[in-house]
């Protein structure tokens, strides 16, 4: 009975297996990226980036229809342009990253909307907006997995400068020039993972698989390594439960996955070992030293 609900959908249907594989691949990339976004106080910036990608994807859609490579290429170009330009502006002037990013992503959004309305096509962008992880074909799945692999490898390469840049940027500037490239590469990884996510979850919810698991992880660990592991685990768990939920109830898969992550987040806020509400309300007797 339980296996009918939890396992049968995946053993019976290939599209469910592909969806599960996709969500696991997505989680492996998005988990660590999300943790760094959170620790660098850039969570909302991930959201802004998701908006910046939208026009690029829309242009790709206009030019070649529902071709996932065109969508991805358009999204990557728009996302990289916005990320790099805002990164360069905030690094070479005194303007803070959030202000310069807001400017560039709004401009990008405006350009995208302009192009779409001038073209005057009444296109269905629902797929781009909300994605469809259940319609994942093999080339797309391969691409998602490739991007996730790339993310992990690149993150391993820039890990040390990225950590030092997050905790003590001035120190890194005095000992090395690795700070700026690490930061820019990290911005690029955000874009890659957002584009990766929007085929499964859509441009609007792709960022959810980064931010929510990272938020969950913050409540369970004080050290960055376990935090990353917890974030990945939480993302995979949300993906799995979300797919089962979607299969059984016909809730769309993207929202189901993010809703499950939100519920786990809520549980973590209440019961989390590190700074959760209940442990703070009932901390137990104080210690000796």
């Amino acid at each position, binding site marked *: 009975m339980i296996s009918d609900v939890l396992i049968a959908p995946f053993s019976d249907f290939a599209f469910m297996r592909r969806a599960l594989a996709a969500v696991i691949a997505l989680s492996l990339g998005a988990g660590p990226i999300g943790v760094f976004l959170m620790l660098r106080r850039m969570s909302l910036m991930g959201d802004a980036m998701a908006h910046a990608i939208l026009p690029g994807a829309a242009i790709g859609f206009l030019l070649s229809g529902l071709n996932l490579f065109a969508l991805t290429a358009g999204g990557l170009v728009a996302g990289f342009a916005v990320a790099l330009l805002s990164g360069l502006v905030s690094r070479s002037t005194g303007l803070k990253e959030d202000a310069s990013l807001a400017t560039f992503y709004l401009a990008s959004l405006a350009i995208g909307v302009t192009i779409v309305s001038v073209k005057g096509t009444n296109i269905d962008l629902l797929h781009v907006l909300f994605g469809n992880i259940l319609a994942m074909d093999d080339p797309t799945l391969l691409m998602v997995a490739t991007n996730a692999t790339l993310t992990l490898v690149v993150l391993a390469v820039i890990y040390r400068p990225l950590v030092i840049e997050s905790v003590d940027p*001035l*120190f890194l500037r005095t*000992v090395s020039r690795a700070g700026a490239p690490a930061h820019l590469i990290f911005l690029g990884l955000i874009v890659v993972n957002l584009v990766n996510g929007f085929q499964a979850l859509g441009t609007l919810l792709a960022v959810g698989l980064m931010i929510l698991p990272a938020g969950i992880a913050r409540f369970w660990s004080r050290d960055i390594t376990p935090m990353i592991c917890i974030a990945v685990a939480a993302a995979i768990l949300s993906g799995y439960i979300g797919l089962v939920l979607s299969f059984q109830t016909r809730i769309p898969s993207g929202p189901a996955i993010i809703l499950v992550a939100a519920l786990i987040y809520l549980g973590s806020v209440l019961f989390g070992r590190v700074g959760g509400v209940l442990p703070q309300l009932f901390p137990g007797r104080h210690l000796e030293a």
Partner: protein
Amino acid sequence: MTVPLKFQDVTLGYDRHPAVHHLTGEVAPGSLLAVVGPNGAGKSTLFRGLVGLLKPLAGSISTGGLDRRGIAYLPQIADIDRSFPISVFDFASTGLWRTVGPFGGIGKAARKRIAQAIAAVGLTGFENRSIGTLSGGQMQRMLFARVLLQDARVIVLDEPFNAMDASTSADLLRLVEHWHQEGRTVVAALHDLDMVRGHFPQTLLLAREPVAWGATAEVLSADNLAQARRMCEAFDETARTCVPDQLPSRAA
């Protein structure tokens, strides 16, 4: 290092307004130099210029072939995210950057050195604590451990003993003197004149412009100190362009 740090008619500042004006002088290798002056005298600006974070508006700073990134610099206002989940041990280990770089492993010998540095600043037992749990004094001790690991020929400390209690200051001052004995060049901005007189052989008295530079006892005279207070005038938004021939030529 056998070549001195040379300041040649250096002017450092922000938006063309000088904060350090026409400074010329040398810091001999292995010297222990205190930089003294009122708030706003340009001490921090001078250090930012020395470590290469700020480009001089005019003149030049020569480190005698020493890579700027080989100078250990402890800023006054550290830009450290104390909520970042990193342990004291890992944080201190970043001092090894010059030897391990972004990819080098931290092996047994390096771990031993890190443990020794943490012990030298009196933080043994704190290795696995996250940096957010440290007090102000413990934080400063940890930053000194990192400087220790940087193993730099030139060490620049910007008001390292501010808001430190007596025992922390004393412990950290011992480290500074130890670095001096090892032949490293140490430059430190300080406010405690008794400490300067007691422990720092050389002093630069700065008040935007150099007031005096030399042996501590001569520099810290009542006259010089009074003059430094007078000279530290405010930033003038409408200041005119500084014309070189108003000043004696110091080109070397």
